[in-house]
């Protein structure tokens, strides 16, 4: 009662010193709540998607189609990225290392940078742009044209038919793409070092072999698996929850690419910390 009458008095006087503070709390609180809500929704979606990847029924034809779409058709993009990254890396390393008379370290720098970091991260980002966007746009369009509802009415679970094949294909194919990228990237460094910087082919290759260890490649491939999973999940999640209309599908596509790219960078740090700390 007393509190109520106080509030009434405050209303009458027209100023409550707590109002600005409450406003700030309201804005902060609603922001935190919506963030937690979105995180929870994404976690629930991810859990459901993973569950359907392992529980029958499977759609082999859909999985095969996605393996080709996500894997095979991404090869040119990933290959070109790796090739030119390896070439630039050799050039830049040379510029830096000649100042310390350490040119012999170039082969090692190229192979470590490519296998540990550049090939998985750049392939992940390129695939997020190419595949993540395509997944979000396709599933988003299916959502707004009621094709996903139609799947349900035809006794086909959309998680098994649409989501699981893409998540399986993304997780399996990105490591293969990255392994290919590793080889092409090192080859890019080799080409520049031999034909541009005048290194001896034999010593360059032997230095590459000497420096490289299994963990360098394996850690990169493990990262790639995680990145592939992230790209597929973010594409599916944003597409599946797309709002109505062209604008809804457009936002879903943008959000899929942006969120996948940021998560790739965050998880790259976390995984590096786990592997090499």
């Amino acid at each position: 009662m007393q509190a109520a009458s106080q509030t009434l008095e405050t209303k009458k006087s027209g100023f409550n010193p707590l109002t600005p503070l409450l406003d700030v709390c309201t804005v902060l609180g609603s922001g935190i709540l919506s963030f937690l809500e979105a995180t929870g929704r994404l976690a629930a979606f991810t859990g459901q998607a993973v569950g359907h990847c392992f529980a029958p029924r499977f759609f082999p034809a859909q999985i095969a189609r996605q393996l080709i779409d996500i894997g095979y058709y991404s090869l040119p993009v990933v290959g070109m990225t790796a090739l030119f990254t390896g070439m630039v890396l050799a050039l830049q390393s040379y510029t830096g290392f000649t100042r310390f008379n350490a040119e012999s370290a170039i082969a090692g720098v190229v192979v470590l940078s490519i296998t540990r970091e550049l090939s998985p991260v750049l392939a992940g980002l390129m695939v997020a742009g190419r595949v993540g966007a395509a997944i979000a746009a396709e599933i988003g369009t299916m959502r707004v044209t009621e094709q996903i509802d139609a799947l349900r009415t035809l006794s086909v679970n959309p998680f098994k038919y649409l989501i699981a094949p893409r998540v399986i294909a993304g997780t399996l194919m990105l490591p293969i793409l990255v392994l290919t990228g590793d080889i092409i990237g090192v080859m890019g460094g080799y080409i520049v070092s031999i034909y541009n910087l005048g290194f001896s082919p034999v010593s360059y290759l032997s230095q590459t072999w000497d420096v490289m260890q299994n963990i360098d490649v394996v850690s990169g491939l493990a990262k790639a698996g995680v990145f592939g999973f992230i790209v597929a999940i973010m594409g599916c999640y944003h597409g599946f929850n797309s709002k109505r209309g062209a604008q809804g599908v457009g936002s879903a596509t943008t959000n899929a690419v942006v969120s996948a790219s940021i998560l790739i960078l965050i998880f790259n740090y976390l995984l590096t910390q786990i592997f090499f700390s």
Partner: protein
Amino acid sequence: MTAQSGTAQASENTPQDNVVADLPTEKIAMKGVYKAFGNNHVLQGADLVVPKGKSLVVIGGSGTGKSVMLKCILGLLHPDSGSIKIDGQETADLSTQDRDDLMRKFGMLFQGAALFDSLKIWENVAFGLVQGRGMKKKQAREIAVEKIRAVGLRAEVADLYPAELSGGMQKRVGLARAVAADPEIIFFDEPTTGLDPIMADVINDLIVEQVKGLGATALSITHDMASARKIADHVAMIYEGRIIWHGSVEELDNSGNPYVDQFIHGRADGPITSGQVR
């Protein structure tokens, strides 16, 4: 007159109770269903019964809750409260597997046909048979072509893609897909929207033919009165998330309900105002 008093008057005049009491078997029974999206209370205690083997058409303006009601019955949306029974079985808390099994009883024609644009026409029609029921592709194709013919399309259409067909043809394919697995219950979501009057009548005829041919129970939602009169055995009117009138199609013109009268005659003046249609 306010909506509230109109609704009260409608329920006094309604023959709904008699209709429900006379039903031979309830195929679909919906009772006290509520569904809200945030502060938008779309369904507010909707009650509906569809007798076995009959065709019920729900009429109502845009935004009155028709589509949401249909999606709740189909299980595409979960109602906040209330009961929805199919063949006497409560559907609210079904497991995913049981829901998938229940879906085998259903066929649905979507407003925009909702054909899978990456698949050929025959693959669309056979989709439920092949993917949903594991039928061999060759056998499913034969059934699909037969259904494509049954909705008045040439067999050559089977190998085209949905984008190569007109809106009317897509609707026919959607109908062929809905009836391909000989469902017990068929839902029609605004089956004639976006079609010219002649094509709309063709679709109406096909709907009647297919539903009667299968002996199926049909539930349609529409605001096209010509379509409603043609395909309905019973008509119900939804307004502000509740069924405010329910009767046979013959009773439609003498419903004594001002909301129904205004709607079926398409008058701007009456208890339903444009502001009230969300």
